[in-house]
Structures are given as C-alpha cells and as structure tokens.
C-alpha cells in the first residue's frame, strides 16, 4: 500500500488530518466477497422456521375473525363469584383499589375533600345501613354530607353500571370489615333488591351523575 501524501507541512492542525487521513485515501467502491453461509446460521434459521410454523398453527384461533387475541389458547375462567364471606373480602380488597384513589388506601379519606370510610358513622355507625350504602355505591352521592363532624361536598361517581351486584356486595363487605371497622357482610341479593326498588316505570335509575343520591334522600331511608 503506497502512502503518498503531499506536504503534511500544509496541515498545521494535526488534529483534523489524523482523523481525516483514511478519508483522503478513498478505496474503490465496495465489492462482494463469496464466503459461504455459516452452517450454524442455516441451522438456527431452520430451527426458527420450525418454531414459527408451530407458533402460527397453535395460536391462530383457527384464523377466525372473532377469536380475539389472548395469552392462553383455551377459554379462560372469568373471575369466580365469591362463595363465602372470606372470598368476598378478598375480592372486595382488590376492587377497593378504585375507591382508594379518593378514599385512600387506609380508608382515611382526604380532609375536606373525600370523607373517610374508617370509623365512619355511615359505614358501621348509627347512620349506616345496607340500604344507604348500596345506593351510594350504585348511584353515586352528591350534595353536602357530614362525616365525623366534617363536611364534604365533592361528588362521588356511581359504580352500578361498572360493577355487578356481587362485586358491589364484595367491596362493601370489605369496607365494613377493614381498618378496625366492625360491620356485617353485604350480599349480592341485597344489592339486587336495591336496584329493583329504584326502578321507576320500568327504567333503571341511572348509575351516573344524574342518578346520584343526596344526603336528604338517604335521610329518609331506614
């Protein structure tokens, strides 16, 4: 390899030339070599092709448009309905994650904003009843409510459209037995009965903003 470079004296800035040297000597345009494909790559490729074929055959749901994507090929069991108070509390604890956003993880609420559920007279005390609690969770609450001497005005959304009866019963059972609360369990039948009682002219009470109960309304309940 001849290394004819004209006056390096010209290039006073030694920094750049050293970096640029290889560029000045430009090689011919690139060409192909003809080494064979390594065997291991062919073997690997073959193995992957087998995997691909097997995977395609197994996880394609018979190529149907209504077989939607899931991790398990067979039908999975949906969440079982609790058969005991213990199972209710377990399910309720998981569902409580949604409530905890406002009422906080230990049921303490946010002073002045969201009422506490721990030691609340509405949950287990003298103002508590399944009739009232079911309606609060099913339809939401709006208006001013007093809990443990503090006033709260933030509206609460209803969950009757989002949760089934056994789920609402589970979360109420959990709330009534957590953090030192000593209240009894709530059953799905009780929740269903409330829904039926709130039906007017064959139409369900809306489980959203306009259907929310007020403290006045609750006061009239047993």
């Amino acid at each position, binding site marked *: 390899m*001849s290394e004819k470079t004209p006056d390096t004296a010209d290039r006073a800035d030694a920094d750049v030339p050293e970096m*640029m040297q290889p560029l000045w000597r430009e090689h011919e345009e690139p060409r*192909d*070599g003809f080494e064979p494909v390594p065997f291991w790559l062919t073997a690997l490729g073959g193995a992957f092709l087998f995997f691909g074929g097997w995977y395609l055959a197994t996880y394609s749901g018979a190529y149907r448009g209504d077989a939607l994507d899931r991790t398990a090929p067979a039908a999975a069991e949906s969440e079982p309905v609790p058969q005991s108070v213990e199972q209710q509390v377990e399910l309720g604890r998981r569902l409580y994650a949604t409530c905890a956003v406002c009422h906080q993880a230990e049921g303490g609420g946010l002073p002045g904003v969201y009422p506490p559920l721990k030691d609340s007279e509405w949950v287990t005390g003298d103002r508590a009843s399944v009739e009232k609690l079911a309606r609060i969770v099913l339809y939401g609450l709006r208006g001013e409510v007093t809990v443990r001497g503090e006033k709260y005005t933030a509206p609460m959304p209803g969950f009757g459209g989002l949760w089934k009866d056994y789920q609402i019963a589970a979360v109420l059972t959990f709330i009534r037995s957590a953090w030192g609360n000593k209240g009894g369990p709530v059953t799905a039948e009780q929740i269903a009965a409330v829904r039926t009682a709130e039906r007017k002219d064959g139409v369900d009470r809306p489980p959203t903003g306009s259907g929310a109960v007020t403290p006045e309304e609750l006061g009239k309940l047993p």
Partner: protein
Amino acid sequence: MNSPPADPATAARAADARRAIDTSCRGPVLTYLASATFWLVGGSLFALVASIKMHAPDWLGGPGWLTFGRVRQTHLNTVAYGWSSMAAVAAAVWMTCRLCRIELRYARFLTAAAWLWNVGIAVGTVGILAGYGSSIEWLEFPRAAPPILALSLGMAAAVVIATFLRRREEHVYVTQWYVLGAFFWMPVLYVAAVILTREMPVRGVVQASVNWWYAHNVLGLWVTPVGVGTAYYLIPKVLGRPVYSYYLSVLGFWSLALFYSWAGMHHLIGGPVPAWMVTASIVGSVMMVIPVGAVAVNHHMTMKDHFRELRHSPTLRFVVFGAVSYTAVSVQGSIESLRRFSEVAHFTHYTVGHAHLGLYAFFAMTMFGAAYYFVPRLTGVEWASARLIRLHFWSSAVGIMIYFVSLTVGGWFQGLALLDTDVKFIQIVRETVPYLIGRSVGGTLMTVGHLAFAVLLVLNLLGKGKPFGETQPLAA
C-alpha cells in the same frame, strides 16, 4: 482485499470519475441533508420539551400549542419525516450515483422535491401545534400535508429509479437492492395508509391494523433498508475490504423483505383484534432473527481484525455503533413481541426505549456516519474541528445509552406494577418519574451532539475548513 489499482493513472481516472459524480449530486444531496439537520435540531427541542413535561407537567403548561400531546406528536413527525427521511434520501441518492457509477441528472428536480418535502413538514408541524393533529400514530399531520409529502416522495423515488436504470455499472451491489426496495415500498405504503385511514377509512379496528402495518413498515421497509444499505456501503468502503459473503447478503435482503413486512401487529398484542393476525406478526418479528443474523455476521466478518480502524475513522465509529445497535434492537424486538413478554412491556416506557434504540442508536448514528463521509466529498471542504466530531459522537452515544437504560429499566418495573393490582396506579406513576428524569438527561446529551453536528455542517457548507484532499493520488 480489494485489488489495488494497477497504476496511479487508473487511480487518478477513478478519482476524477468519482469527483464528477459527487459534483453532479451536490445540490440535492446537500439540500436534503441540511434540511434534515434543521429538522433534527427542531425535533430534538420538541423532544426535550416533551420529555421535561413528563416529570414537570406544569412547566410551560399554559398555551395550547405547547401542550404535551401536541409537542409529542410534533417531535415524532419532525424526526421521522424531517430528519430521518431526508437524511435517508440524501445518503441513498449519493450511494446510488456512486454505485451506478453515473452522474445524477435531474438534480434541480430533486432539489425541488427536497424543498417540497420541507414545505410539507412545515405545514404539518404548524398544523399539529395549531390543534389539527390527527392522533393517528405516524400519520398525525393534518390533511393538507400528506399530498405534498407523497408528491415529493414520488419525485425522489423517480429520480433514484431513473438513475438506476441509466447505470454504467453492471453489477448491482447489495446496497442498491435495499435502496431500490425502500424507494418502492415507502411511497406505496404512505399513499395506501393515508387513503385507508384518512381519506376512505376502513371500519373500526381495521384502521388500527392498517395503521400499524404502515407505521411498522416505515421502520422495516424504509428506514431499516436505507440504514442497513448504508452500513453495507460504508463499512467495506472505509476499510477497503469486500463484504464477507454475497450469499448472506441475498439471504439477509429477502428474509427482511418477507418477515419485516409482517411484523406490524405486534403493536396490538392483547388488543381487540383477531389472534391470528397478532400471531402472524409475532412469527414475523421472531423470524427477523434470520436477516438480522445474516447482516450481523456479514458486517462483523468484514470488520474482523480491523476494529482498530474505529480509532481513526469517525464514519466507521458511527456506522459500526449503528450496525451493532441494529442487531441489538432487532433481537430485543423479537423477544419483546412474544406474548408473555409483551404482557409486561406493552403500554410502558419500555417500548419507547426500544423505538429509540432502533431509530436513533441504529438509524440516526448510521446517518451521521454517512454524512461525515460524503459531505466533505461534495463540498470539497474538510470538517472544521475534530473535537466537535468527537463531542458529537460521545454525546450522542452516551446520551442514547442513558436514555435507553432509563426507559428500559423504568418501563419494565412499570409493566410489572401495572399487572399487580395491589399497586395503585398513582404509585406506579410516581415510581417512573426518576426514570423519566433519566430520559431527559440522556436526551439533553443527544441534543448537544446534534447541535455540534449542526455547527459542523454549517461551517462546512460555508467553506470554513481546509480543502478536502482529493487531489492526492489514491492509495489502495
């Protein structure tokens, strides 16, 4: 080894021929590259704003045009269509002329296409910031922009293909296959996607499948082929050695064309789409191991015993960094597409880390390497400062590593926590914040590198550097 030219006269003739080719394509290639750099700097600033807003959401939180959702859309489009695409055209056109051994004709036509593209990006960018973004990922530009971009893309593709058809060199080198593929695929993809999602939209979730067929193929059939083709050109070129194996090149090209195009539905794993489509895409994604392996072996064996050249050649440094990142991001992608893995990583910052490993650590770094090579040859002016080049390389390399590690680790933990219903959502958000700050740190470093590159480019275009030494005779 490349056989050395028989005598200095042949070498001088070859150098003259190359100089003529370089002169013929100087206008459009430099226009594309300079425009690309402009969008790179702009896109990097949008990126920084968006990144900082993710851990300081009230910063610049007032005006609508600066809201995170719009800035983030703008970032993606300016770096994907402004920087990446224009750099791709610049590199592809230059390599096509060199490999066809023919001067570029229709240079002014191509320069016009570049300016048209700039107009399209500008219209699109302003449109998104003004509140007309579509929120269709990778197709966010408002309706006025796509026709402009499609026309410009068509013009560039026409020039590349016309140049190829006029070629003097009979043998079609591997880079050319990739470039031809890219310039056929991208215009068709773009027009089809715009029609099927915007103009005559298909119904419901079929739009999602068109969307991700398109968006993933922008990576797989536009950006990747140009990036891989560039590495195939520059590594042997700088070293003066042949590519290791023609057969691996063929295997790599066709398996990429086949498998990559099927991989798009891995963006919809777990989604409301038929399982067979997702499975087909997972198979396509996993099978990418074959072309990626072929390319990796080819490049590695070409570089073997010559890694010391990395010390001398900035081009090689950037391109090899890019080529290694290509292998890494593709293997990561193959694993990421498996359902059990995706269960955790989908919807998290992990995927953003992966995207940037591909588009930046692989593609952008490769494009930087190409620019450092061809710009002095087109302008006849050396780069003004080796120090700035080193700053660029290290800032970008360290920056993307910090970026990638932050989001990969943070995203993985985020994914695990999302699956654990005992962890409240807001807790997950709080725990990702340190990693998002890490991303801002990495992104700042990357932006510093881009500014260094922009400064170098401007200096070079203004002629502020020593004359490029092509007057010396060639050595082998």
